[in-house]
């Protein structure tokens, strides 16, 4: 059973400015949640809070265990991917080295994931030299390689062309089918419709709507959600 985050009265304030909340949110146990909203709505902040990277000013973050323990079975793909100054293979191997996976299974997993993201011929290439899209794929593969229960994806396809986007979405769908709980921030509505089982909609740090996917996309309850889906500019 995947341990999902639950927020009560969660509020993030930095330098006197309220960035997020207060938010009360309980997520479904399975599937893929999209976090939607315009730029600066607080999508990244919400994901970082749930992963325990951002301290709450008020309210609480709850998992079945402590957030620190929960993080051991989570992975996070950052909006601007963090690429280690190492080869592609060593980037993929890194989480497995940390968790003490043996050499043979580690190398097998690295070869497998490199193939899935089309980088089999680039194993010894220094990862910082990859293109922006290749780096995003590498960061996703590196997150999936340790088989997380809960995966946070912060705009994982923002730099990708159509083909790469389909590859990435297939990898994400595979992970969900395999039982990984995914929380995905995006402002790509098409992607949200294709992947989401439920949606969370933020504007200016406030939770406007949280609903199962068909309901959110077919009959949004708020005027703001309707306007967002029509591509209108939100005030």
């Amino acid at each position, binding site marked *: 059973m995947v341990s999902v985050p639950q927020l009560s009265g969660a509020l993030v304030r930095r330098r006197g400015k309220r960035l997020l909340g207060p938010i009360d949110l309980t997520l479904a146990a399975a599937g893929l949640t999209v976090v939607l909203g315009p730029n600066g709505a607080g999508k990244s902040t919400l994901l970082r809070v749930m992963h325990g*990277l951002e301290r709450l000013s008020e309210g609480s973050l709850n998992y079945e265990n402590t957030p620190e323990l929960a*993080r*051991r079975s989570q*992975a996070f793909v950052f909006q601007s991917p*963090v690429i280690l*100054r190492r080869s592609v293979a060593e980037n993929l191997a890194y989480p497995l080295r*940390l968790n003490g996976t043996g050499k043979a299974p580690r190398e097998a997993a690295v070869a497998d994931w490199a193939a899935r993201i089309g980088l089999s011929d680039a194993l010894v290439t*220094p990862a*910082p*030299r990859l293109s922006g899209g290749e780096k995003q794929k590498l960061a996703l593969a590196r997150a999936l390689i340790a088989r997380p229960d809960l995966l946070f994806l912060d705009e994982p396809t923002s730099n990708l062309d159509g083909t790469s986007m389909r590859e990435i979405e297939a990898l994400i769908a595979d992970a969900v089918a395999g039982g990984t709980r995914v929380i995905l921030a995006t402002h790509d509505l098409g992607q949200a419709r294709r992947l989401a089982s439920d949606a969370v909609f933020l504007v200016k740090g406030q939770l406007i709507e949280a609903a199962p996917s068909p309901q959110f996309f077919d009959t949004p309850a708020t005027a703001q959600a309707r306007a967002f889906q029509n591509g209108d500019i939100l005030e």
Partner: protein
Amino acid sequence: MDEIAAGLVAALRLIVTLDSDLVEISLRSLQVSLIAVLIASAIALPLGAWLAIHRFRFRRATIAVLNALMGLPPVVVGLIIYILLSRAGPFGGLGLLFTVKAMIIAQVIIITPLIASIAHQAMRDLWAEYHDLLISLNTSKWQRIHTLIRDGRRALLTASLAGFGRAIGEVGAIIVVGGNIDHATRVLTTAIALETGKGDFALALGLGFVLIALAIGVSITTHWLARTEKDSRW
């Protein structure tokens, strides 16, 4: 003019024939500076990494002290060590004054803050880049330091090289604590100072060429390290 030309020719002859004084002095210089760099790096590199990732009460103060120590005039460092090691000083009993060991101590004190400061800067930038990922992956403090040192190894080597460059060309402190004793504590810089004073330009210039060659070697290596970093060659 003739004197200088004659000095140049004589200097080249000393180098080509591997003059025993010249070789001895050069090797002693290398010995002192290399040992000093090894000791200083062993202290300064982990210190730099630690200062970059560890938040503690006197961190800013420590960094300020480090930067201040970098500006210490070497001859004053020499004077202080001289006093400490002189027969009347607290460490006089060790009999270290006017030995190679005293010179190494002086150089370690001069270059440790320099290496630590450069290493700290490099590690701080790398830590800013890696921070989110390493926290997300629940790395232990030791794993973090290990990752930073491994992936920042070029920058750390550059820091050590800067220390070596400073040490090999330093004269003020080691002439005070070493005494420039022939066949004992004479090194490139102190010998050049002495030979120039005596008017023996041949040996002074010969030693000068060796020193310049070492300095150029250091800067070429540093440059090459920076380039491989940019090209990201692994």
